[in-house]
């Protein structure tokens, strides 16, 4: 007691500052970094914040954001999902497999979500019931889906996407992309699910400590499987929207999204060790990826630097989140 008092009385705010800094960085660093990146880029190239460019960035953000939300659920329960990009491409192929009529839109939507959910279910079952590492389970599902897709399309997908989806993916409502509206709705719904619902609480407890979860009566396996199902379903939705944005379908719609979504989540403070992180943080991570990619071009640097910057940012961000070695 006396020691604590002495510390308080001593006029040495430095110690407490350095002690608190990591926590502060962990909680808000991502948002500060995001704002800083925007400000610096704007200073160099004012066109960065032009209506057209902002609208363009937001349109790119939407599909990534939706995938990141799903990925967040999976990472929270100590997993990761490498199959999201494959699910996205498969959704895009499904979208063109019908006549391209708007009347089929509902059917397409359900087929896509069903495919994504089924993939997630398979991932979740492999991880929980067979105890396969998430990395391998989702890697294998990624490859299987890719093969099935290639086989079904003979390597050259063709056909049309209903105009409804094309509009959803690429049109704007006075500058506000429709697809971003979809992302916002998804973020709110799943944000409530994760941060306000009983299920979300079970997700955090399961991810934070699977043994505790079981001992307080939570069906940890079921919670984990559901997280993979959510991730697969959202990836399918994102694939649908992205195919509408791209317009043409190929077998690689969504390529790179598996790694980008993990990177965004980790940068946003979602811990790979589970049980820690938020959807807001993960979306901020996704926004940074989009902003940095765009900024590289806007300030006139070669486009190849996008990926270099991405690599640097992930290593730096991840090392900031590493918790100091414990006793």
């Amino acid at each position, binding site marked *: 007691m006396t020691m604590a008092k002495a510390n308080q009385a001593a006029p040495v705010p430095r110690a407490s500052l350095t002690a608190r800094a990591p926590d502060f960085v962990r909680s808000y660093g991502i948002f500060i970094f995001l704002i800083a990146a925007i400000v610096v880029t704007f200073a160099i190239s004012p066109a960065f914040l032009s209506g057209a460019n902002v609208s363009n960035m937001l349109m790119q953000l939407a599909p990534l954001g939706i995938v990141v939300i799903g990925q967040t659920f999976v990472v929270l329960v100590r997993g990761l999902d490498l199959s999201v990009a494959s699910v996205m491409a498969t959704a895009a192929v499904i979208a063109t497999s019908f006549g391209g009529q708007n009347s089929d839109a509902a059917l397409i939507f359900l087929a896509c979500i069903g495919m994504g959910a089924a993939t997630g279910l398979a991932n979740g079952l492999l991880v929980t019931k067979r105890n396969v590492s998430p990395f391998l389970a989702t890697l294998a599902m990624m490859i299987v889906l890719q093969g099935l897709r290639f086989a079904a399309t003979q390597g050259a997908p063709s056909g049309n996407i209903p105009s409804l989806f094309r509009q959803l993916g690429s049109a704007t409502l006075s500058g506000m992309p429709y697809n971003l509206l979809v992302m916002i709705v998804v973020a709110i719904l799943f944000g409530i699910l994760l941060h306000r*619902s009983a299920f979300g609480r079970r997700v955090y407890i399961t991810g934070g400590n699977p*043994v505790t979860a079981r001992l307080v009566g939570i069906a940890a396996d079921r919670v984990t499987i559901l997280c993979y199902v959510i991730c697969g379903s959202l990836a399918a939705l994102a694939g649908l929207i992205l195919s509408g944005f791209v317009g043409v379908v190929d077998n690689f719609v969504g390529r790179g999204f598996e790694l980008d979504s993990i990177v965004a989540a980790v940068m946003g403070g979602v811990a790979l060790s589970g049980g820690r992180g938020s959807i807001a943080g993960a979306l901020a991570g996704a926004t940074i990826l989009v902003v940095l990619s765009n900024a590289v071009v806007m300030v006139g640097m070669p486009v190849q630097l996008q990926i270099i910057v991405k690599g640097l940012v992930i290593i730096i961000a991840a090392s900031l989140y590493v918790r100091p070695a414990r*006793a």
Partner: protein
Amino acid sequence: MLSLKGIHKSFPGVNALTDMNLDVRSGEIHALVGENGAGKSTLTRIIAGVHQPDSGELSFDGRAVRWSSPGEAKKAGIHVIYQEFVLFPHLSVAENIYIGHERRNRLGFVDHRRTRRDAAELLARFGLDMDPAALVQDLSVADQQMVEIAKALVHDVKLLILDEPTAVISGPEVDVLFRRLRSLRDAGVAIVYISHRLEEIFALCDRVTVLKDGKYVATREIGAVNRDDLISLMVGRSLSDLFPPRRKRSDEGEVVLDVRGINVPGRVHDASITLRAGEITGLAGMVGAGRSELAFAIFGALKTSAGQVLLRGRDISNVTPARAIREGIGLVTEDRKGQGLAMQLDIAANVTASTISEVSRFGLIDRRREEEIARGEIANFRIACRGPATSVSLMSGGNQQKVIVARWARTSTEVLILDEPTRGVDVGAKAEIYRIIQELADRGIAVLMISSELPEIVGMSDRVVVMREGHIVGELSSAEISEEAVIGLATHQSAA
């Protein structure tokens, strides 16, 4: 050989060691005793270079030293046998023994044949019939412990520290171990021996140092003390202050839980126990006697292969923990961080973790209700914190423990099992936890308290059940309870 002066060490939130002194001579076996949480493990890790002291002097072999890694201490001749094994489960016994000191041939390659031959010799010297090529993961726990000890003898060891080496081995193996330790001592090795079993200390050691609450208490020649002296040095306070006053129990409560002959393969054999309403039943025994496993089996977290668990006459054998909770059974596990708390979450979420659906409406958590409940429990259990939204990771061990007890007190309408409820908790919090346990029993709950601390068992229990090697070996009624009686039952060597 080894001398520590005024060592301080603190971890975030805890002062693990304050002003610690220790002096070990070569050619002696020096006992280190103290209750759980007295600082023995931390002290061990400082000597071994795992932790660095915040201040104080450490000198070894006549020189002041400051290890920066376990490797350095090892090189200087310090070998530690930790309570948790430092073994590689997928390597062979021989490889585990020689890891870091591989047997090599003239070309510098690892000589597997010589490794196995030397290991076989070493094991034979120990009187162990063990295949050196067996994988460690396939060994019994006792054999793994013997491998740990054999490992120490490979090296040119000057100081050997053993932390509870006999926790998982029995009679003949203990004898072999003691013989080896004595001959090592006679060869001039300094040995620090940590144990809860006082009879071992009197049988084996030359001097004893007592620790309490992270502080140095005293060092004595073993011939100059008796058991009672040691216990009073270790406990160092009047027990009557710590435990709530015993009530006069007019009548026996009705049987709430009736466990009949349950079996957990390899862990619990044919265990029967009855718990009565309003009664605190102490479950005593050595570490590894199967007490926690029995608790897990009752709670449905371990499968039983035989026997029945009856709750007020209804069979609830092999239920899931979720069902056990609904039936009004609670389990406070011994491993607070590993099995009890969700460290990332706040008090409110931890208190309601076993009743999530109760605090949610339409699937959404009613945060206001949850905080209200948490505030109630914070007041009720006198949990020191800033409020229901305080993260449990920022709290002291005692307050964390209260959060867990609060959680289970809410749902345990019938039975509450507490496994080592005061481990690593400071004295003040201990007294409070005792008070809470007593209050819960007074409410009519059947309480089962597992503890390795004898004063706690004696001070709290209305009845004591003792386990040894997976069997229930005895029961003591209120009048029969004493430390000697419990120890006698818990350590009695099986007649085999």
